């Protein structure tokens, strides 16, 4: 059954495990292992999720594009812009995430953080993975192939330097979060 073996080379398993250990630690420290925090993000009552995500994206982007410019990495690992699939899949994902209050990464971390309902949540994910495999041929024809722009980024698509987007995003995020922090402190003076 396992034509390429069951386990990847051990070095990959060790580096994967170390990455997961740090990632899980960080997710718990941000409290996004709690469904309430994620649901309240969607209810626009708690902006922890956006603060974590946007900070990660800005810091990550600066480093990755700098490494790319310096030739430290060979290329990017961009997924195909199959825009219909990305959009419909993203919307379905959003509905599921609002119901569960967790996503795959935070769901697994939540199990470690004592979130018991994350266990049936992850069992649901396994079931969903199998059901998707059954529907994959049909969905690929219907939603993935029709509008596939390939490995496009915002930079390649607009023929602009990626730094316009990175700096723009950083400025926008900085200003947005500054305003958000002020608004949050006037709304509930005692919250941290």
């Amino acid at each position, binding site marked *: *059954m*396992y034509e*390429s073996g069951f386990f990847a080379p051990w070095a*990959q*398993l060790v*580096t*994967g*495990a*170390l990455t*997961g*250990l740090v*990632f*899980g*630690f*960080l997710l718990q*420290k941000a409290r996004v292992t709690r469904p*309430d925090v994620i649901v309240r993000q969607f209810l626009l009552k708690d902006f922890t999720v956006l603060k974590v*995500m946007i*900070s*990660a994206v*800005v*810091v*990550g*982007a600066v*480093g990755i594009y700098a*490494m790319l410019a310096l030739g*430290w*990495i060979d290329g990017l690992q*961009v997924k195909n*812009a199959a825009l219909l699939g*990305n959009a*419909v*899949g*993203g*919307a*379905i*994902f*959003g*509905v*599921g995430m*609002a*119901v569960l209050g967790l996503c795959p*990464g935070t769901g*697994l971390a939540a*199990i470690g*953080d*004592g979130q018991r*309902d*994350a266990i*049936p949540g992850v069992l649901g994910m*396994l*079931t969903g*993975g*199998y*059901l998707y*495999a059954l*529907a994959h041929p049909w969905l690929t024809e219907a939603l993935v192939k029709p509008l596939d722009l390939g490995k496009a*980024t*915002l930079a390649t698509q607009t023929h602009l330097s990626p730094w316009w987007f990175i700096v723009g995003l950083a400025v926008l995020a900085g200003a947005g*979060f500054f305003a958000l922090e002020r608004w949050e402190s006037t709304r509930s003076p005692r919250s941290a």
Partner: protein
Amino acid sequence: MRNPFRTSAWPPYAVGAAIGVLSWITFGLMDKALGTSTSIVNAAGVIVGAVAPEHVKANAYLAKHVVKSPPFDWQTALDLALVAGAALAGWLAIKPGERSRVEHVPSEWAARFGPSRGLRYAGAFVGGLILIFGARLAGGCTSGHGISGGLQLALSSWTFIVALFGAGIASAFLIYRTGRRAPVVGASGGL
């Protein structure tokens, strides 16, 4: 200053920045992008394959994940270690005399659907099922698209992020704000 590993929560910006730095390491040293949901399919394929191997071999999508490449890979190790990493973070922050955190029914859910654990577990199962279906259709989840793809400025990922938040906000308001009941006190503690 208190030992940061023993404080219960870190500022979200600091955590985000650290995840960004983690992505430098996975890209630069491991030639990998942070992601979590592909290996959920690997695991599903292994489980189904234990019962019906021929069925898994015959399904091109499952075979790609399980038969043609090792199902227990970098990301599978990452996924399993997520549980341990979060457990470690929670355990280190326990103060003397406190017990580790356990929650069965989140308060937002309990305020809308009541304190029943069975109902919440069923809801969580359905939510998990829906979201992985969407993740696989979109080609990634909050990690693979939201963080790794977002930071690479991928068009696919920014499309995913906008759709995710649009649908998430709309469905959260529909699910949690309509016909809202009085908050249930201590819902996570009861049977």
